[in-house]
């Protein structure tokens, strides 16, 4: 599994999220429910960017049409999305958040 540095830990405090390009993918790093998540920043419904959406209690909502995704699994929680979004392995090394973009657990196609 290839991890790449994404952001400093201090850039994503609790309750915050930040989009970053990692190895050509737009990745949303989320600090929610006292842990870090890394998911695709692109909604599976109409390819809108999720980064301005609301994040709460382990989900992110698309700001344009309202689809919500489970940050842990990428599962689409409500219409109009059906397909999941990609989720990525995430770890912290030396104050850096690292993401393994080449190792998508969900929606790898």
């Amino acid at each position: 599994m290839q991890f790449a540095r994404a952001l400093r830990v201090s850039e994503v405090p609790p309750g915050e999220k930040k989009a970053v390009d990692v190895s050509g993918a737009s990745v949303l790093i989320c600090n929610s429910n006292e842990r870090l998540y890394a998911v695709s920043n692109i909604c599976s419904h109409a390819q809108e960017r999720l980064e301005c959406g609301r994040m709460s209690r382990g989900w992110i909502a698309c700001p344009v049409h309202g689809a919500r995704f489970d940050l842990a699994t990428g599962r689409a929680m409500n219409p109009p999305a059906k397909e999941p979004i990609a989720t990525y392995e995430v770890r912290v090394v030396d104050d850096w958040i690292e993401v393994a973009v080449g190792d998508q657990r969900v929606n790898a196609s």
Partner: protein
Amino acid sequence: MSAELKEPKSTRKGEARCPGAPSTQEIIAGDKVSAPGWVRSESYQFLGDEDIPTDRYIEPSYAKEEFDRLWTRTWQFACREENIPQIGDYHVYDVGPYSFLITRVGANDVRAYYNACLHRGTKLRASGTEGRASEFQCSFHGWSWNIDGTNKTVVCPWDFPHVDRQKLQLPEARVELLGGFVFINMDPDAPAFADYLGPEFKAHMDAWRLEDRYVYLHVAKRLPCNWKLAIEAFLEAYHVVRTHPQVAVSNGDANSQYDVYGEHVDRFISTLGVLSPHLYGKHTEEDILNQFTLGDSGALGDTKRTLSEGTTARQVMADMFRGMFEKATNTDLSGVSDSELLDCFSYTIFPNFFIFPGISLPMAYRFRPDPRDHRKCLYEVMFLRPVPKDGKRPEPAEPTYLGDTQSFKEAAGMDPGFGAILDQDTDNLFLQQEGLEASAKRGLTLGNYQEVRVRHFEKAVDKYLAMEPKKPDRDKLPSR
């Protein structure tokens, strides 16, 4: 000495009270930390003793009439303000066929947009969801609206020369904020919310400062009965001794107090930490102490309960609960009376909202009819805790939806003792629904005092059902 529960001494209707038992007010007057005025007052009114016709529970056509007459005219709890903390946040509230985007447009500006595209009607957001909108864009053809309800986009405007963009403002229901709750009303001609509630109850509500609480547990379950039967199961303590025998040991059930306030609000006060009059002479103060069930006992931990000489179970529980709850939730309860800490205060705002402002049972209930089946409804219970002293507001709990056959005890975070009580309350309901359909008696018979809230509720139902149908009509709404 056992109390006589069967022989009313009073001759005027509605004046009889449980004989041989102290009144709720007498029990509360004996507390160490005395209660505020809103607790120490009574407002009972005799409202008649005729049977309540049962067609309202069993006829599908009656439910249809409710959607056209009652739900379109009454103030309803839509969500908590904490569900939409930031500008652009929205929460989808549905009742029957109606759906609204409860949207925060400014710090004190919350709006309820009808959740439907003005092009070909698609919902702008799916039901049961919330989020933060950069815009409300229809997922069908892409017409979109700004969060202030003004139209943002008509795709291919050259094809819509007949559409006045200025008139494409999203239609709104009325919104009022009270105690951290967002209430809406579809009727532009309905009374102002304060008038709907009346001044006395409004003063109670203001005293509770429920805006300083947050929802720490939210559980929802579909119930196999008409929504009105579900509500009525929670309007009295008369059922406690038979439905919840384990609770009666520490609940003043037959001597609970019932009050009505105007047409839309009523309440009971049911004292806890005292023996049921049904059980006088059968239990000791130690029994009462050990049987005491709290809705929020998670805050108490495994504290040992001991009764020292000369004290009552009620006082021991009040003292213990005050200390433990302050510590567990980082809150200051020094100014809170024993009664507010212990007792069950059940208030209803017509048509479907319950608020329990006490500390041991800090809840809100909501009941909504199933638009496709008059024999089903959705019941929600929310537990409200004070926001911690350091002011950091926790996020409100995500709702847990139980399956039809699941126990309330299975909801993560639910106190098992309280979950068992809710199971007992709701497990009677399919029998009542089916029994009413099977019965040769076409009316419910009610007690004059203990069931006055059921009558009060149904009188309000009658009032709205006697009105003409009134469906939302954009052309009759005031323009913004």
